[in-house]
């Protein structure tokens, strides 16, 4: 009995060793970690890219942007991923020059639950801020009612729902609120987790969506892709240029196109509240973080090849997964940045 166990253990060990050896000789393994929001598109890219270049294998752990930043700073991974760009202090903490490479864009939609109003609620951006500040407390407040003539808004208190976990979605949303309300910007500010003036906390997009679904007269925010896939009702927002914009992949790309005119060379830019009549106000990039000077020659070369492929071919896969692709003028700028990576 014991002998059998020993034998099988030995066999297992040999198999494991063989597997490790086999992998090492077959492919270069490139490790990455970070944001959860772009995980579906990244895993699609990596599996498609495996067909293009079978000699390289990507391993991506979606542990959250904060974890991705920590690990790339500690150099335990080959690339990081984040939904929020790094501050100057964070860049300084890294042992080498880290560059931001925007990959795709996402948007955040305002979802709600008002019995009888299944779609098409209209909200001015200032009103969204005042709802989340607790300044507008009833659905039939004249400020909301004026924009929704002909809609029967109930005389009911508004229940605010927000994310309880730290997330890039919250970062984009609070960035947007800070841009439209000076009170929000001074009292709460922006970040992956903030001190909410009021409301219930749900864990993840599914937690917020579930809470909104279960609670009548509630309002919350979720990622655009999540809202579309689950057919949640969403609000049309009046942007800074004064036009009503529905959240969509097109209006998200429009936000980036508007920002391209004054895009900084390191791409550290927020896309919220961009000018332009088609620009949806709650949008943002998600970035890959790589060192400009790659330490490993082989890995560096493979990484650059992948980045070029992602820009040329990968962008076309974004729409199907409900991410907004980079507009053409931004793509050109990114191509230049990728060229600067040395290995």
């Amino acid at each position, binding site marked *: 009995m014991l002998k059998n166990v020993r034998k099988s253990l030995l066999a297992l060990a040999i198999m494991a060793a063989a597997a490790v050896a086999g992998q090492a000789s077959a492919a270069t393994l490139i490790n990455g970690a970070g944001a959860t929001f772009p995980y579906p598109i990244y895993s699609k890219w990596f599996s498609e890219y495996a067909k293009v270049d079978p000699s390289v294998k990507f391993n991506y752990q979606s*542990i*959250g*942007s*904060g*974890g991705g*930043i*920590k690990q790339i700073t500690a150099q335990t991974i080959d690339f990081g991923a984040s939904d*929020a760009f790094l501050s100057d202090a*964070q860049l300084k903490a890294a042992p080498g020059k880290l560059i931001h490479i925007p990959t795709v864009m996402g948007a955040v939609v305002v979802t709600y639950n008002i019995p009888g109003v299944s779609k098409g609620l209209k909200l001015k951006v200032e009103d969204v801020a005042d709802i989340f500040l607790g300044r507008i407390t009833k659905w039939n407040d004249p400020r909301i009612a004026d924009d929704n003539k002909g809609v029967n808004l109930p005389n009911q*208190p508004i*229940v605010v729902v927000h994310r*309880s*976990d*730290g*997330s*890039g979605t919250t970062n984009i949303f609070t960035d947007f609120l800070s841009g439209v309300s000076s009170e929000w910007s001074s009292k*709460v*500010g*922006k*970040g*992956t*987790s*903030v*001190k*909410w003036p009021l*409301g*219930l*906390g*749900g*864990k993840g997009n599914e*937690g917020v969506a*579930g*809470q909104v679904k*279960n*609670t009548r007269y509630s309002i919350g925010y979720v990622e655009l892709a999540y809202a579309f896939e689950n057919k949640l009702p969403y609000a049309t927002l009046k942007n800074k240029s004064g036009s009503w914009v529905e959240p969509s992949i097109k209006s998200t790309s429009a936000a980036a196109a508007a920002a391209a005119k004054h895009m900084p060379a390191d791409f550290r830019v927020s896309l919220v509240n961009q000018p332009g009549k088609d620009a949806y106000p709650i949008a943002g990039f998600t970035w890959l973080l790589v060192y400009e000077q790659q330490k490993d020659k082989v890995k560096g070369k493979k990484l650059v090849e992948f980045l070029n492929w992602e820009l040329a071919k990968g962008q076309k896969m974004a729409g199907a997964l409900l991410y907004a692709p980079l507009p053409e003028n931004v793509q050109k700028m990114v191509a230049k940045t990728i060229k600067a990576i040395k290995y």
Partner: protein
Amino acid sequence: MSDVTASHRWKIEKGLSGDFIFKAVTVLFAFSILVILMLMLYEMVSQSLPSLRKFGSHFITGMNWDAVQEDFGALPFIYGSVVSSVLALLIATPLAVGTALFITEIAPRRLGGFAASLVELLAAIPSVIYGLWGILIMTPWLQQSVQPFLQKYLGFLPFFDGPAYGVSMLAGVLILVIMVVPIITSITKEVLTAVPRSQREAAIALGATRWEMIRMAVLPYGKSGILGAIILGLGRAVGETMAVTMVIGNDPKISLSLFSPAYTMPSVIANEFAEASSPLHSAALMHIGLLLLVITLIINALARLLLWSMSRGAARGAKL
């Protein structure tokens, strides 16, 4: 003759060396646990140092938790953890002890066995499943049926005040009750089955009814074991993360009302640690972890003390 003694001695020595190795290995294992605990403590203290230095005792008494302004006070989380766990135990203990008594004393053997295996099945369900059930089924039910009912008839009490959201301290307590009952039940059941037959027979021989037999012979005998079961349950309740996070509402405020959302210590760590990019924020979360460890140690120490005083009391009783 000398041959025999030689082999005899050799045998003894072999036995001795076996003993020695066994002893060394067990000591090594025991110490490695101690070392791991010490390393954990060291690591947690050193990681939470920035927060310990900056906030000191303000961290325990502070009510403000603001990652943007970097001001951290953990009192709402401590309150949430302690209140939800204690309330859950207050409800779960009579339920669990009652179930265990039913299984061991009242039910016919086959029915008891069936009930026992059901309880063990409950203990094996992962907590995220409880959480999903909680958010999809329990909280809507609370919001639509239970909370309006409580508000109508007991609304004058501060505990049932405010609007009914479903997610609330009440939901957190109830989900903990459901998770803790199977643990306390199955351990209590083992304790009760270990009560010697002679105890029960003696009580019955003295003319005790079944209830008197349970009260006078079975429960006192199993007292310390049941207490141990409750402590284990408390440990699970304090440390439970996923299920509670999903139903408690995650709002760091202290409110008497069971209807208002609350927040617990493990929940805030699970929620914020992955995305905490500023060093002070990570340190504050580590600091909460450290507090959680300290609270667990205090609870364990209190339980030991209680057990010890009880067993001493029992020994004195036996002497008298």
